[in-house]
């Protein structure tokens, strides 16, 4: 069951296995900080480890205003442990940019992103009025590419050698997009994950 959302209110969502709610500065803990300082987790974002402590992480979280910028913690219902987050940025023109991080590696390969983003997409299209969801990922973030494709996103463009690659050299960046009409068609055909 999902809490109805009104403009300006925090976003809280629920799936079969997970709850989503805004991470507030006071919610930041050592586990959250550790994700930003983990080489393997940050590699997916093509970023070096941040060497953050609690103050830097709280500062980061404070940038999300729950109006245009949302930083939703993903909590496993079974353990009540926060295992990652999904970030949403409203860009205007009905576009919402998203990315997600599963920081707890015990949950990698468990289709968490598909389950959580499935509900987030429903929320964005049906309640927030989004017309298009977009995301940019590096071409070596193979798990993310799987997730976007499996969820019906289209790779709309390859930005060749667009960024310095964390492991040296350069890397392509991929622009993924999902239109509301495509999502609605998925729901009707039962193809959505």
């Amino acid at each position, binding site marked *: 069951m999902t809490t109805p959302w009104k403009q300006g209110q925090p976003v809280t969502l629920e799936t079969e296995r997970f709850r989503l709610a805004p991470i507030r500065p006071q919610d930041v803990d050592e586990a959250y900080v550790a994700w930003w300082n983990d080489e393997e987790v940050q590699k997916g974002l093509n970023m070096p480890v941040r060497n953050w402590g609690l103050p830097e992480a709280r500062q980061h979280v404070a940038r999300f205003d729950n109006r245009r910028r949302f930083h939703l913690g993903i909590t496993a219902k079974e353990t009540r442990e926060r295992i990652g987050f999904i970030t949403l940025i409203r860009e205007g023109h009905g576009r919402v940019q998203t990315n997600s991080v599963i920081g707890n590696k015990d949950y*990698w*390969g*468990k*289709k968490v*992103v598909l389950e959580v983003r499935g509900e987030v997409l429903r929320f964005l299209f049906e309640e927030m009025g989004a017309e298009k969801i977009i995301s940019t990922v590096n*071409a070596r973030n*193979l*798990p*993310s*590419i*799987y*997730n976007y*494709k*499996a969820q019906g996103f289209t*790779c709309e463009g*390859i930005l060749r050698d667009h960024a310095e690659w964390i492991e040296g050299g350069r890397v*392509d960046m*991929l622009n993924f997009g999902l239109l509301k009409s495509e999502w609605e068609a998925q729901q009707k055909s039962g193809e959505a*994950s």
Partner: protein
Amino acid sequence: MKKAETQARELIAEALMTTDKEIPLDIRFDQSERWDSLAHMRLILAIEESMGRSLVTREILEIESLASVANILAKNS
């Protein structure tokens, strides 16, 4: 192509941590319980290892099924 199909099946089975017999020829990445994001990553890394080179981005995006993996392997042979 038959050889590439057999190799594709082996690589997918390895990535999905199962046996060749469990991999139907029409398997698709978005319709298999076992084919998740980590399996997908393992598969692409295994393809790259078998081919002795990194896949280009368009090849990475093509990988959706056994047929698509076989197609990439056949082109590289």
